[in-house]
């Protein structure tokens, strides 16, 4: 015992030593911001984690009384492998760059400035505290190296720039449209994109010309820094290591109450294990979140349609706060109409009260001098107003309210969804004629002095001969590459079936001049090969569940496809967007909340009540309406639909095929089980394997050598093992009859007991209980290879005449079969394990394959249930075969909708 305690002590000492040596890192104190306009329920903690600080995990703690801290959340850190770099670029001692440290607001982080003094002003810089930079690091150095000099955290992002002239002068790939080159006398055989090779931009050349340096990221072009520079983790002078790379961490605490004092602290772990913990803690910091006045949508725009004199308000927030919208606790907008002079927004007449989640609001029939303002109220009753919103004149082409707009209870759900649906089912089709093998041609045009110029509106091409007047960012074009049409074309039809479940659409069918094709898996694309240079007529339909075609004109496509040249006609979908709102009171607009948006490529919006917690069902009745937004900013609002209440459904109709199959299975099984139980004799064909078993036994008798029977590695509950036991009964019977020695080495003790019983009974039934030897049925080991080795040894020792391997086998099958084969015994194997069957088939004289094993067992067994079960399986197999034949005929003749009955996907 004392040795044990001693060794445990030694062991824990070894594990404990590193924890004494380590200096726990102290994390920086976080900065806490209270989000305005949120009701005082949110705080955001921000802090910096410098890369050279070792740590694996931050924990954020909060306290309400300043003493008892509770853990809010752990945040994992990325832990880099430390590397001590000795590359050439790390050593910058002769570059002549200096760093000047300066104080900053935060005492733990300083500001630094990088300078390259001239011999004249070097002394004055040194007197300012400038230190010579000897090394820069791009990886985190190991702890031992870090400890050599003090570590100082510094603000700013720094790069080491070693520009590669080669890159700047190498042509870069780019692309443009062919049309841009027409004015310069270059005619191209294609319409679309052409590949270009362009030179670097002027700014790039300038950047490169400045040479190698250490630069602050401020005032540099980020793209160029990324291309030619490498971000620095730490700048090292002889005295100090300045770590400049850090990660910004932010953690929102969304569960605060206003006017309550909260204290926070951070804990940074270096090691966190059940027994050993090493960590440092930050200083604490306190804050009292406040419930402020909400933000008003100050950037709201009013668009006036001069025809109808309607105004549409597009609500919008100031960009500086728009991102925080999800934190706001605003609840309603009150919209006022007033006249231009009312600059204080006090004398307006109230038009309506709406929910603050609305995106648009339409005001009918205004007078031209009407102006508006919006007052927003939060949940605690505080309010704020926008300034006056004047309208701007717009010309509206009002979007249509889709036909047959309706709400329905979503099918096959638990009662948490309502669908808003509309018509008509539409088949939208585009196409693409392409070369099978395009030939690419490259043309050198550098002598034309063409430049690619990037503007806000897109790229243009300019011809510039005077090299001094090249605009900034222009790139000289050196080569053009484009594809010359080959002589083989392919037609790709792209389509979009814009339907909702009510339309019962399965898949589309297309015919291109009498060639019919369906896309049963609805991939959105159909290909026609071997396209000739001519005009084709394409017809398209959508096929419904009953095999019919949808009748309405939108659901049918007839178009001419011009395959004489390479072209692309995209799918045309109208540019409308649908905004869906849900409310609880048809008369009160403030109850209607925005729930989601879909484009015009949908005919359905499914409202899943996502704001409710999981597993909570919505209660009560709901109303819906839809706002349709047109591309010009016009908005059309639908009538209010409803009321509707989501209902749970009793049966999932998507699974009807599975249900029918289950029914057939249960009925067939019950039928055969019932008849089996009543004693009906079912016919089972003779199994070839059984004949071979007798043959093998016969030979063993001739030779007068023993028989080895292996039941495999399965446990008793396995089907294969049970079948093996049944067959063992037959073998044992014959053995008793022929007076053979039967040896059974067992893998599982329970199987052994059952086997003993079976053999004993068989011998008794044959009237030879005297021949039964229990010691021949024995347990070996429950270890796979040890068992296999033992049985192999047995086969060689006993020189068995016949070996039976029947049951569940794994990788040991080949060891058994090999040894048996080498002793020259007759071997009969049988297993349902498909991966072991090949070894038995090649190494044994006869093999019972897969299900034959069960059949053989049923054939030999007295249990009527086994036969009944086999019979039921046969019946179902027959059905499967009928389905395969029928379905193949249907598929071959194009009746895909019949095949579709068998397609069952998930929920």
């Amino acid at each position, binding site marked *: 015992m004392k040795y044990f305690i001693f060794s445990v002590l030694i062991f824990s000492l070894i594990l404990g030593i590193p924890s004494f040596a380590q200096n726990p890192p102290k994390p920086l104190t976080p900065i806490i911001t209270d989000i305005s306009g949120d009701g005082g329920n949110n705080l955001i903690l921000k802090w910096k984690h410098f890369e050279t600080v070792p740590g694996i995990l931050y924990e954020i703690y909060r306290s309400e009384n300043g003493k008892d801290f509770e853990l809010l959340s752990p945040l994992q850190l990325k832990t880099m492998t430390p590397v001590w770099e000795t590359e050439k670029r790390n050593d910058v001692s002769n570059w002549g760059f200096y760093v000047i440290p300066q104080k900053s607001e935060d005492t733990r982080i300083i500001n630094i400035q990088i300078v390259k003094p001239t011999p004249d002003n070097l002394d004055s810089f040194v007197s300012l505290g400038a230190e010579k930079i000897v090394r820069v690091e791009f990886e985190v150095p190991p702890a031992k190296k870090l400890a050599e000099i003090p570590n100082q955290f510094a603000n700013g992002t720094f790069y080491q720039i070693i520009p590669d002239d080669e890159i700047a002068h190498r042509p870069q790939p780019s692309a443009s449209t062919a049309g841009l080159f027409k004015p310069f006398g270059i005619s191209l055989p294609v319409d679309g994109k052409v590949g270009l090779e362009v030179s670097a931009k002027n700014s790039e050349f300038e950047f490169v010309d400045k040479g190698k340096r250490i630069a602050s990221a401020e005032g540099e072009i980020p793209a160029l820094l990324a291309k030619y520079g490498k971000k620095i983790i730490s700048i090292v002078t002889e005295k100090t290591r300045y770590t400049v790379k850090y990660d910004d961490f932010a953690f929102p605490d969304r569960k605060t109450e206003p006017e309550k004092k909260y204290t926070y602290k951070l804990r940074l772990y270096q090691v966190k294990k059940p027994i050993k913990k090493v960590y440092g803690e930050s200083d604490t910091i306190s804050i009292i979140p406040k419930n402020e006045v909400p933000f008003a949508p100050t950037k709201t725009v009013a668009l006036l349609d001069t025809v109808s004199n309607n105004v549409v308000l597009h609500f919008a927030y100031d960009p500086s706060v728009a991102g925080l919208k999800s934190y706001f606790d605003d609840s309603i907008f009150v919209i006022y109409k007033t006249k231009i002079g009312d600059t204080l927004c006090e004398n307006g007449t109230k038009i309506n009260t709406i929910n603050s989640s609305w995106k648009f609001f339409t005001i009918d029939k205004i007078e031209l001098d009407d102006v508006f303002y919006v007052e927003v109220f939060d949940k605690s009753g505080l309010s704020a107003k926008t300034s006056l919103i004047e309208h701007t004149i717009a010309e509206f082409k009002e979007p249509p309210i889709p036909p047959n707009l309706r709400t329905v209870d979503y099918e096959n759900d638990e009662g948490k969804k309502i669908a808003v649906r509309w018509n008509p089912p539409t088949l939208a089709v585009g196409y693409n004629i392409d070369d099978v093998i395009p030939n690419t041609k490259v043309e050198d045009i550098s002598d034309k002095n063409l430049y690619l110029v990037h503007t806000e509106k897109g790229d243009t091409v300019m011809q510039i001969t005077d090299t001094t007047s090249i605009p900034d960012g222009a790139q000289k074009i050196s080569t053009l590459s484009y594809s010359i049409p080959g002589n083989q074309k392919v037609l790709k039809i792209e389509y979009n079936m814009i339907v909702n479940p009510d339309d019962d659409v399965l898949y589309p069918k297309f015919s291109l001049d009498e060639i019919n094709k369906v896309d049963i898996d609805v991939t959105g694309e159909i290909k026609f090969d071997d396209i000739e240079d001519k005009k084709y007529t394409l017809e398209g339909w959508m096929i419904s569940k009953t095999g019919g075609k949808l009748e309405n004109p939108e659901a049918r496509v007839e178009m001419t496809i011009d395959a004489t040249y390479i072209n692309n006609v995209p799918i045309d979908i109208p540019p409308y967007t649908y905004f869906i709102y849900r409310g609880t009171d048809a008369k009160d607009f403030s109850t209607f909340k925005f729930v989601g948006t879909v484009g015009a490529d949908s005919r359905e919006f499914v409202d899943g009540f996502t704001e409710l917690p999981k597993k909570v069902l919505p209660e009560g009745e709901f109303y819906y309406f839809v706002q349709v937004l047109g591309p010009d900013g016009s908005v059309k609002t639908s009538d209010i639909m409803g009321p509707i209440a989501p209902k749970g459904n009793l049966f999932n109709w998507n699974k009807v095929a599975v249900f029918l199959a289950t029914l057939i299975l249960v009925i067939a099984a019950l039928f055969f089980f019932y008849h089996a139980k009543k004693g009906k004799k079912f016919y089972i064909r003779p199994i070839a394997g059984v004949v071979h078993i007798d043959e093998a036994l016969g030979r063993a008798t001739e030779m007068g050598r023993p028989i080895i029977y292996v039941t495999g590695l399965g446990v008793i509950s396995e089907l294969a093992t049970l079948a093996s036991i049944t067959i063992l009964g037959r073998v044992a019977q014959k053995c008793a009859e022929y007076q053979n020695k039967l040896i059974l080495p067992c893998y599982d003790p329970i199987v052994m007991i059952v086997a003993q019983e079976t053999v004993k009974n068989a011998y008794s039934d044959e009237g030879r209980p005297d021949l039964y030897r229990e010691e021949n049925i024995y347990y070996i080991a429950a270890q796979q290879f040890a068992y296999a080795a033992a049985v192999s040894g047995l086969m060689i020792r006993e020189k068995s005449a016949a070996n039976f391997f029947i049951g569940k086998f794994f990788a040991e099958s080949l060891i058994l079969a090999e040894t048996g084969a080498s002793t020259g015994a007759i071997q009969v194997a049988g297993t349902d394990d498909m991966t072991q069957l090949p070894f038995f088939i090649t190494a044994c004289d006869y093999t019972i394959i897969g299900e034959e094993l069960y059949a053989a067992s049923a054939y030999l067994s007295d249990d009527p249930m086994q036969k009944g079960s086999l019979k039921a*399986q046969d019946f179902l197999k027959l059905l499967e075969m009928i389905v395969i034949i029928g379905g193949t005929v249907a598929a071959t003749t194009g009746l895909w909708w019949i095949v579709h009955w068998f397609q069952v996907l998930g929920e």
Partner: protein
Amino acid sequence: MFWKKQLPIIIVFLSGVIMTVQYFVPLHASEFVFDNYIKWGISIGIFAAILGYFSFIRVHIMKITKKAPNWGYSIVALAGVVLMIVAALIDGTDTNGYYMKFYLYICASINATVFSLLAFYISSAAYRAFRARSSQAVALLLAATIVMLGRVPIGDYFSFWTHWGLPSFYDMAQWILNVPNMAAKRAIALGVGLGSLLMTLKLILGIERTYLGGE
């Protein structure tokens, strides 16, 4: 008798039928049953696992106390268990801890090596046992050879006939796998599917009750 025999069978029947019906019913109540059934099933399993540990420890302690043949190895096995628990307690279960190292470098290495012995057994069996005893076995070995050559890069290296547009070993292997092999395996899968379905039904209906153990 009822408590020991009938009731378990009734429980099997009810839980089987409820779970089958649940699949087709999207109602909230049905989802509730589903969610909680999963939690319950997991909780039962967690504690049922103790049985496994218990019988493991019992077997080895029995061997040691009875001084059964090779009982010394049982001490080794039990020491392994204790070692792992102590390592996890002191050092945690992270990558760099002793717990993970013990597993990766000792247990995993040994297990991987034990199974790598099969490479030797299969080569010995290839030489001594895999015989083309019948025309069907010839088909099997031929398909096997093509797949073996088609799955290694050297198969294509040897396929000089590809110059004349004939399929290489790789192409032949892909064809065998995707066409005849797929067809045969599909038939087996369909059969196995039916077999397991009938087994399931027999369990639910209480016809198959070997799982209840003896008596």
